């Protein structure tokens, strides 16, 4: 069964973990034993039962009532399987948020309707990062409707303000579909079944929206053959990963950077010789003539090569300003220079003149020391995204535009 991966985004304390915990319980996707444990801990801490504890399993997370690191849980709805990914909403834990969000195809953005909470900078930042990572369908869950007396006005205010922000971000980040649903994550309103507390809302439940967006996303775009070189397998050939198209024996291929022209002699998949390997496979291949291939090299048809070069334009998100950065793209790593261009204004979603600060999103020109093979993110996601590191570790990510 294919698992649709859904990430919950939004400001801290707007209810992401609580939502997932409650959805697991409402769809009977979690054992009584785990529910009992969460109940016992809630009692011991002297608080009402917290469904978020089904995800937040570290003692520190429970005692401080915050998500520190990303977690996942699976559920079934209408014979489709979903993996709900929880991430922390705190600014200082953005790396853990990115780790969780990076594997999702669809996002749920949580916004608390509670007075004094609402749309924050972090709400917008998470939304813009999701847009940048190519999530084109976003479900906005307007949460804590119970604390606002389930009033239509509270829902309307969040919807109008966030819709306006999304429209103004279209120009810089591209269009997204956003659907809004009023919920109470804690009480279970409009999660799986329609709430009687909000008769004024005629739309689908949250789970139904997730289902429509996640299962409705068409087949992934496939361009011609693109396989990434993982490395040499001690005399047995070249380990690689097919991300698009099809490898077959006898095929004339090029390996870039370097324009090495070869023929595929043999394909070994999971220990067996096979005539071909499609997207998703990690085969070992023999190419002739044999030559040392670099990690991160891209194998394609000889007549249809990827982009190759040392310069490209990108959107980048910096969790921290790197010193002497490198980028990593498909296993290749290259020292680079990042020239910051315009900044995406977190308040308006529009590009403006800016300077590099932590937690900012920028247009940037990247110049690498070594030649790399890649694609634009919109052409082939896997070959168009990269991470940014320096000697202190992870400092951001980007997409090639």
């Amino acid at each position, binding site marked *: 069964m294919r698992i649709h991966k859904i990430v919950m985004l939004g400001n801290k304390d707007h209810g992401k973990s609580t939502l997932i915990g409650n959805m697991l319980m409402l769809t009977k996707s979690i054992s009584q034993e*785990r529910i009992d444990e969460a109940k016992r801990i809630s009692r011991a801490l002297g608080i009402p039962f917290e469904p978020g504890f089904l995800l937040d399993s570290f003692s520190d997370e429970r005692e401080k009532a915050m998500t520190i690191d990303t977690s996942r849980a699976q559920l079934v709805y209408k014979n489709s399987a979903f993996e709900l990914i929880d991430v922390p909403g705190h600014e200082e834990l953005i790396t853990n948020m990115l780790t969780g969000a*990076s594997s999702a195809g669809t996002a749920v953005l949580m916004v608390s309707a509670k007075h004094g909470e609402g749309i924050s900078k972090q709400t917008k930042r998470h939304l813009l990062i999701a847009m940048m990572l190519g999530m084109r369908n976003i479900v906005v869950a307007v949460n804590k409707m119970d604390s606002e007396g389930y009033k239509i006005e509270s829902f309307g205010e969040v919807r109008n303000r966030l819709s306006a922000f999304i429209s103004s971000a279209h120009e810089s980040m591209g269009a997204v579909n956003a659907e809004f649903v009023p919920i109470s994550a804690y009480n279970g309103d409009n999660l799986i079944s329609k709430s009687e507390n909000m008769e004024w809302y005629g739309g689908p439940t949250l789970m139904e929206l997730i289902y429509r967006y996640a299962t409705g996303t068409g087949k992934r775009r496939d361009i011609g053959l693109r396989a990434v070189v993982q490395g040499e397998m001690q005399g047995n050939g070249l380990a690689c990963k097919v991300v698009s198209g099809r490898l077959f024996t006898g095929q004339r291929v090029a390996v870039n950077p370097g324009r090495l022209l070869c023929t595929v002699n043999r394909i070994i998949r999971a220990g067996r010789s096979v005539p071909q390997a499609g997207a*998703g496979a990690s085969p070992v291949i023999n190419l002739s003539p044999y030559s040392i291939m670099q990690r991160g090299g891209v194998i394609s048809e000889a007549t249809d090569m990827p982009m190759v070069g040392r310069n490209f334009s990108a959107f980048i998100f910096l969790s921290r300003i790197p010193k002497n950065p490198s980028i990593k793209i498909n296993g290749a790593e290259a020292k680079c220079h990042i020239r910051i261009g315009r900044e995406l204004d977190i308040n308006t979603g529009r590009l403006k003149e800016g300077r590099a600060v932590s937690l900012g999103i920028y247009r940037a020109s990247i110049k690498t020391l070594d030649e790399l093979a890649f694609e634009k993110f919109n052409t082939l996601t896997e070959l168009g995204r990269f*991470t940014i590191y320096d000697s202190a570790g992870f400092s951001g990510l980007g997409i090639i535009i």
Partner: protein
Amino acid sequence: MIEQNLSELEEKSIYIMREAKMKFKNIGALWSMGKDSTTMLAIARKAFMGKVPFPVIHIDNSIDFPETYKFRDYLAKKWDLDLIVAKSEIKPEISGFSCCGANKTEALKRVMAEYGFDALIVSIRRDEHSIRAKERYVSPRDKDFVWDYKNQPAELWDDYSSKAKKGGHVRVHPLLDWNEIDIWRYIKKEHIPINALYISRNGYRYRSLGCTHCTVPIKSDAGNVDEIIKELKTTNVEERSGREQDKEKEYIMQRLRSLGYM
């Protein structure tokens, strides 16, 4: 329990194990002779042309089940495994948390030091425990084996680039995405040999295997792999419900793992 695409799971596990083999100098793998680590070895054979290319470590506290020892020797010979047996002493007065901590983890520390492993393959899965759902595919441990779970490194897309700090090692988790039922479906599909304790005898079978002191069987009539799969489709009982060390106290798994337990 959700049944995932076995071929996708297998490819990803193969990719992760090859990444580990290419990036680290000296890899070892833990083998408890249980279903998960045995499945991991079956996948490693596929990833590396039919031969497991790293030593497999049995942390032997001498109180594993007789069936477990028998299965170990059978498969080590059949698959030509490079088996390391790391003996640990069981003290009768120590049990539960202290037992896993003091005996298993200490024995692991000794064997890691003796062989100088910089990476250790451990066959944990997210669905086993909510603490394990918080793990990375490649996760650093410091020289004292401590898991700094509050400061885990980024791990985006297929970039498993975490490195060990000086004196430490990394844990590699190639089966993190698998569900319990996927393991059994794969065992069936690939005809992987399994420890006899998983099969029901006199109305009981073991669902998760530890040592004789801390593991209790579940009520089950599942007499073969097909029947185990059928049983798992409808169960609402936790896989590790027969593992005493998990339940002694709150956060036991967090404490065990943060101190280096597997």
